[in-house]
């Protein structure tokens, strides 16, 4: 069965946007499948449509036919396609379930990268990295504003929170998106598969500074990541708490080019 679904993992959209997580190819594959099925019907419908328009242009002396669509022989031109559309729907539903289950309903256990806490607030992201021990809420946690650092090819869980309004944690290259809701913690996971530096966006309107709620993610290989962790591990727990205070002013967040900075 899994081989069947493997078939739908593709990266045809790579030229437009990188595939940088383990499940990005699943989503792209699903999109590709929908494109094929729906595209087929779309082209067919448009083709017939324009063909009819050209073919049945009014000509002097020719009268339109009288067809009420009640005869079986006529009706089947509607009923058969509509059953076939239903079949396409079912196929899309099945593949979509599979992708959805993998990304949103299943949580791989024992994430070897650790757990990252992502906190949205007007208008910045705070990332609580687990630090060297890969345990969250310990003294060596690294707090960063609008900067997320992860190690390539490791599985992470994330805990998504918001302190004020709705935000949405979106990393297009990972194909991940999840709304953050005040008062709740939402868990999810990702596994980066390509090193580089990419956009993190806020995908839910959250007020004045929604447009500048930009962050960056650095996907690093093991050495670089270790070096980053070493460099940023706070000396004491107190220092860690200091860093936890995000820059709250509008002005700081709204300054042009203010991404990733603090």
């Amino acid at each position: 069965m899994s081989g069947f679904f493997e078939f739908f993992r593709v990266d045809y959209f790579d030229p437009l946007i990188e595939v940088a997580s383990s499940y990005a190819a699943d989503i792209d594959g699903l999109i590709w499948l929908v494109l094929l099925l729906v595209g087929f019907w779309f082209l067919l419908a448009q083709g017939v449509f324009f063909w009819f328009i050209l073919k049945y242009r009014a000509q002097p002396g020719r009268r339109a036919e009288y067809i009420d669509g009640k005869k079986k022989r006529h009706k089947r031109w509607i009923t058969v396609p509509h059953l076939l559309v239903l079949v396409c729907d079912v196929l899309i539903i099945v593949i979509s379930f599979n992708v959805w289950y993998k990304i949103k309903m299943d949580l791989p256990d024992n994430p070897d990268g650790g757990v990252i806490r992502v906190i949205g607030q007007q208008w910045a992201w705070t990332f609580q990295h687990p630090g060297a021990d890969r345990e969250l809420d310990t003294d060596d946690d690294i707090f960063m504003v609008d900067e997320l650092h992860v190690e390539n090819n490791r599985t992470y869980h994330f805990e998504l929170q918001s302190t004020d309004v709705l935000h949405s944690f979106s990393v297009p290259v990972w194909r991940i998106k999840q709304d953050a809701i005040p008062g709740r913690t939402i868990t999810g996971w990702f596994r980066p598969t390509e090193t580089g530096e990419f956009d993190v966006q806020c995908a839910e309107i959250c007020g004045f500074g929604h447009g500048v709620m930009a962050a960056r993610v650095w996907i690093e290989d093991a050495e670089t990541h270790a070096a980053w962790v070493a460099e940023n591990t706070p000396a004491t727990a107190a220092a860690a708490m200091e860093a936890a205070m995000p820059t709250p002013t509008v002005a700081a967040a709204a300054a042009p080019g203010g991404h990733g900075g603090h």
Partner: protein
Amino acid sequence: MVEPAVDLTHGEAHDDHADHGPQGWLKYLWSTDHKVIAMQYMFTGMFMALVGGFMAYVFRMQLAFPGINVPGFGAVSPGEYNALVTNHGTIMIFWVAMPVLLAAFGNYLIPLMIGADDMVFPKINRLSFQVFFVSTIVILASLFVEGGGFAGAWTAYPPLSADSTYNLTDLGSTLWVIGVGLEFVAFLLGGINFITTLMNSRAPGMRAFDVPIVVWMIVVASILFMLSVGPLLAGAIMLIFDQTLGTGFFDPGMGGDPILWQHLFWFFGHPEVYVVLLPAMGVVVEIITTFARKKLFAYRTVIFTIVATGVLSFFVWAHHQFIAGIDPRMANIFTITTLLISVPIAELCFIYIATLYGGSIRLTTPMLWALAFVAEFLIGGVTGIFLGAAGADIYFHDTYFVLAHFHYTFFPIAIIGTFAAFTYWFPKMFGKMMDERLGKIHFWLTIIPFNMIFIPLFVLGMGGQHRRIYNYDQFPDLAGGVFQDMRELATWSLLIMLAAQFIFFYNCWKTARSGPRASKNPWKANSLEWTTESPPPHGNWHHLRMPVVYRGPYEYSVPDREDDYWPQNEPDGAPLQVVDDDTGEQGR
């Protein structure tokens, strides 16, 4: 209109149709005539379309050329950008699509097409417009109050919308909710009229399946609206209380739940998209049957598909919330229902295409608009499937792909469908024939730029561009380069499209001044509105000669008949002239 010589008193009714009301322009404000009310709705909607279009112009300029002083507006701050987007969406849906397609054409067409002299409750009808008019003033005023217009997106998700410390638009957000709430009340009042008028006031002889599809569609849309808007009205009350009294319905800190609003909103929001879709679909049926000289393919199936669509539309709402933090198992259920809805809509589209088969197609301006509707709506429809598959929506949610999807549905509906209806019924409404050549130029200069605006936006969406972001310089992966070129292309195309609208207004102006007079039935169509004068007099028909119906509205090209059309009110075998007869005695 020639008054018949017959003594009216024997028709026991006193002359109901003489205007006893106020005179002059007041007559228009206080008229209960469904046609006047239709015009009021239409011109308000047309004005609001220009307001919404202007907003699109301002924020598209900002997106293409971040930071410039937009001519006619000035520099756009992030807050203003959000307010413009929010009110653009709100206005285009609630003050353009609904008033024009549903209220204006509903008001104009329902009585005329079912052979009645007015709506059953003319005063409620007038009240409906008056409430709508107040709502228009409220929404426009909300743009100018301190703090600016509401800037929390047309979906108004709390907590952002519920608390002015978050949204920074204290008065603006409250006025926005009040405006939208009043608009709903106006359409509830109007809808009751539409539904009961169709149910009870059809011309003698007109059975349910003799009613023109557009009337069916408008009435089904009104029912959908009526049955879905209630929870949102309740939600609006809660939201206003949250904003002004400090209750916590949607505030998690006070035991409330922000997701509740999303359910209430989308429970209405999704049926709402079919509320505007159906009237446009109906308009298209009238036009393609007329200009293809064809009987509608499978009339009854059309009715069944719209009812099926309507019923299903109540069970798909959470596809807007796949990643909003709802139970992920729910997503699976809503994926199924969402994809199922493609079946009746596909069927409708196929029926339209089948109707063209074997026709004798004349590409007049209204026909061009109607055909363009089908071609463009298909793009909007099929892209909905990408979003309906929850797995793919993880990526697409709140990107420009969604945006392009719904502009490919809304634009065909609210702009293309409206122009189709407007140009088709213009001779009836104003008694003049529009200029076909100008109409076609306007058509092409609207359609081509339309595609050039939104196809780039599809690509941007696939590239990961999110909605409601005022400046992409913040996002290195998406700033500059080809992406920015596409943003500029979209904006330039919009400028062309907006400029093209002057052709339309010039055409209207020219036609009003010097256009040729329209006969009763310039398109040689079957439905009843074409059997009275253009424009119809007060009361639509002389009250002693109200039409009687003998057949359905799509009897075009019936074999063994000389004419290729057969008006609904023409008795079997009778010569056509009787319909045009003005003497009154042989009327029916």
